[in-house]
């Protein structure tokens, strides 16, 4: 009997139209838990480094976390893993809502999609009944609109639907997958569109077996109040009307300038009033008492959900007001566009026009105002019309396709991917490492456990550390000694980066929301879930004997496997460069030293490649063997491929 997981994946080949229910190896659960971890193993095994992301051989994997479908509150984020045409490398996203738990109740831990359908289809999973159905009548329909139409068509209001909009259908690199109040961003939608998979609808009514159900339920029941009462978890900023932090500190336009002085009381009043007017409701995800997502009804637009920082990204990129942001989200959410990267692509287009690189010939009837220009460009991009065809490939590729000096305007991408629009003063050691070495493309998916700033008052610092259950001991000492406006030491920076990213690898295998753990300790050190209490939840659910060290090791294994996937696709130290102007004052020597130390600490070569010793210690021998075979790691005598042994014929 398998506990907390179903033990089955759904394998869909869209080229052949085949559907298989495949039993999975329980040893992989012990090694990787689930979610992103077990998905990485499938990608390593089946999608080689030569597979083009747009090839039918690329896989698109929807994974439940190991705690989905258990009573543990806030375990609802579904992991989506594939290869990105934008970066050429591993692409990962997570989305909240209800999809993962529903999938597990339907009897599957994952949906593994390969191949490519000849025309638009959707997948209907109803427990044991799974169908690939025609979706050509949904062509061009919005993402949430499609979900509603599918539920109507299936007469199944309780189905959970993940769907793509026009952007993915036209293989726009910034395309998302939309589900209920959540979105999978960071470039996974483009592969769903490329495979001509318009949507996946799931309805599950089966039980999920739990190893120690009563104990787990009791432990989980205690978490509702804890999470609800904790003011330092959930999406804190979503509920704030005082946007001073964002508008003052984040860069406007194409990650260009700070706009200090923009924020004032009058504006706060106006913006608050507007938000209250357009908000229908605050909503939450499956089995979580936090309400992090706004349901928005903007005049003339279909209702949509606003989450995270997308409340301001379009407004700031276009130098517009909040009203414009709510307005354009009504369009971009239905097209299915990433609220982080898309505004930067649009602002980049506007900059090129202002610089004369794009002309009226490229952009006929281009409006004069910021808002008008953004609406104009969004339409060109999702239809891949004219210059929109280049812009649809993201800033990095568009700059090179457009040429004429456009490359100089590509200043905020790293590893070919748009980064958060932050331009700061002095290089920050832990942040340098997190940006440089992260595999998850966006800093929000890497940072989050260790505080961003030191506390000046010693008593306050002590108070902070006293209740800091989430932190391994060494960090308490370092935080106590950390004086404001000083760098943590290189050693400390390495550990901070390590802890921060490790917690995200934990969440993305367990299925817990980052707003309850990996992203949320950095403000007050009071994350409800952390490395010290998650092992018990997992142990009770799965029936394995897991402690903090064990969970950390699983996260490290997943982190190294994903590193290896990218290394096999060419990732090296030379790629690990945050945008040049991310900080005004850089310390090139210290930065290189940081990389040296981080790689050494991780057990990687000085070029960022996990060593054989490291890989083997994490039971990733098959990776080190592959690296040696490919010449990525040097082979030693013991590990050189053995001569074939001659077999005597009788």
């Amino acid at each position, binding site marked *: 009997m398998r506990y907390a997981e179903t033990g089955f994946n759904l394998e869909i080949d869209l080229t052949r139209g085949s559907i298989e229910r495949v039993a999975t190896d329980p040893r992989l659960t012990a090694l990787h838990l689930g979610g992103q971890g077990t998905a990485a193993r499938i990608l390593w095994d089946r999608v080689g480094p030569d597979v083009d992301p747009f090839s039918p051989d690329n896989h698109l994997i929807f994974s439940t976390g190991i705690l989905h479908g258990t*009573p543990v509150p806030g375990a609802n984020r579904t992991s989506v893993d594939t290869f990105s045409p934008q970066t050429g490398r591993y692409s990962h996203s997570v989305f909240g809502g209800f999809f993962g738990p529903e999938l597990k*109740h339907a009897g599957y831990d994952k949906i593994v999609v390969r191949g490519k359908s000849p025309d638009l289809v959707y997948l209907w999973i109803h427990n044991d009944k799974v169908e690939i159905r025609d979706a050509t009548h949904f062509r061009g329909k919005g993402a949430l609109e499609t979900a509603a139409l599918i539920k109507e068509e299936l007469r199944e209001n309780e189905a959970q639907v993940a769907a793509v909009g026009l952007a993915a259908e036209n293989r726009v690199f910034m395309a998302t997958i939309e589900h209920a109040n959540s979105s999978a961003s960071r470039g996974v939608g483009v592969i769903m569109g490329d495979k001509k998979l318009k949507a996946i609808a799931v309805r599950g009514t*089966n039980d999920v077996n739990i190893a120690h*159900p009563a104990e787990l339920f009791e432990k989980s029941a205690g978490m509702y109040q804890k999470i609800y009462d904790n003011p330092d978890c959930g999406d804190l900023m979503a509920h704030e009307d005082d946007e001073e932090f964002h508008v003052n500190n984040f860069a406007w336009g194409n990650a260009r300038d700070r706009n200090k002085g923009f924020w004032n009381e009058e504006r706060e009043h106006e913006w608050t009033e507007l938000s209250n007017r357009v908000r229908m409701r605050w909503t939450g995800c499956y089995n979580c*008492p936090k309400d992090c997502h706004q349901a928005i009804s903007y005049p003339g637009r279909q209702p949509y959900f606003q989450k995270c920082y997308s409340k301001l990204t379009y407004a700031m990129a276009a130098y517009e007001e909040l009203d414009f942001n709510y307005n354009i989200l009504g369009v971009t959410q239905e097209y299915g566009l990433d609220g982080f990267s898309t505004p930067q692509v649009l602002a980049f287009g506007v900059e090129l026009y202002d610089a004369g690189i794009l002309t009226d010939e490229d952009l006929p009837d281009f409006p004069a105002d910021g808002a008008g220009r953004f609406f104009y460009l969004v339409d060109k991009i999702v239809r891949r019309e004219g210059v929109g065809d280049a812009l649809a490939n993201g800033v990095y590729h568009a700059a090179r396709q457009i040429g004429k000096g456009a490359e100089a305007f590509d200043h905020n991408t790293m590893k070919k991917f748009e980064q958060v629009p932050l331009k700061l003063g002095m290089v920050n050691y832990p942040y340098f490492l997190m940006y440089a070495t992260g595999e998850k493309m966006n800093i929000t998916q890497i940072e989050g456990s260790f505080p961003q700033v030191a506390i000046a008052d010693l008593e306050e610092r002590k108070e902070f550390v006293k209740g800091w259950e989430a932190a391994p001991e060494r960090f308490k000492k370092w935080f106590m000694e950390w004086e404001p406006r000083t760098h943590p030491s290189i050693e400390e920076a390495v550990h901070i980066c390590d802890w921060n990213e490790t917690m995200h690898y934990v969440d993305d295998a367990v299925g817990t929301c980052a707003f309850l753990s990996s992203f949320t300790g950095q403000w007050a050190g009071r994350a409800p879930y952390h490395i010290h209490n998650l092992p018990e939840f997992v142990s009770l659910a799965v029936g394995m004997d897991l402690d903090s060290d064990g969970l950390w090791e699983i996260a490290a294994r997943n982190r190294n496997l994903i590193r290896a996937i990218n290394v096999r696709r060419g990732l090296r130290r030379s790629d690990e460069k945050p945008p040049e102007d991310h900080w005004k004052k850089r310390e090139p020597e210290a930065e290189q030293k940081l990389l040296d130390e981080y790689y050494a600490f991780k057990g990687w070569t000085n070029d960022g490649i996990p060593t054989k010793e490291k890989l083997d210690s994490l039971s990733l021998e098959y990776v080190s063997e592959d690296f040696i075979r490919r010449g990525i790691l040097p082979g030693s005598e013991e590990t050189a491929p053995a001569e074939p042994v001659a077999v005597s014929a009788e």
Partner: protein
Amino acid sequence: MTEAKGTTAVVEKRIVKEIKVDLDKCIGCRACEMACSAFHSKPRFSITNPARSRIRVVIDELNDVYVPIRAGDYTPAECTGRHKYTINGKEYNECSFCGVSCPSRDFFLEPDSGLPLKCDMCEEDPTLDEPWCVKVCRCDCLTYYEREEEVEVEEEKRGEMELGLESLMSKYGADKVLDAIARLSSKS
């Protein structure tokens, strides 16, 4: 025939358990479904599966519909369910979403057997301070309260035979049962 007959109705005060629903506060998390299914699984808390829940949040995201509906009493005519809803700040006593048959009936079928499920307010000995759906609803969409009600109760307990005959009559109709009794009597 010595079994007691006839019942005399007397008025008695009784505590009626109610759950008030404030639709404006529902965030659609469905924790109520999860907890309900856990409590009603056998053994207790052995299974969590919203499909087995006696409360469902009916959600229509695009129309801002978030309505927790409980598996109330079945009534052939008008609804006497204990639902109390708040919509846009206004309180509606009992459910007045419809005038005829309860739309929630279809939702509440045990997925394996197809048998109907019914909310029992988490009856337990010792009594819980509030039902589980309310316990986990931290946004206060569901709140539990008790009210006193005067009800007519049957003073005397009815015998087994009378109860048996009543159910036979409700199944086959009084005429058929009387016919059968007459037939059997004449034989003996």
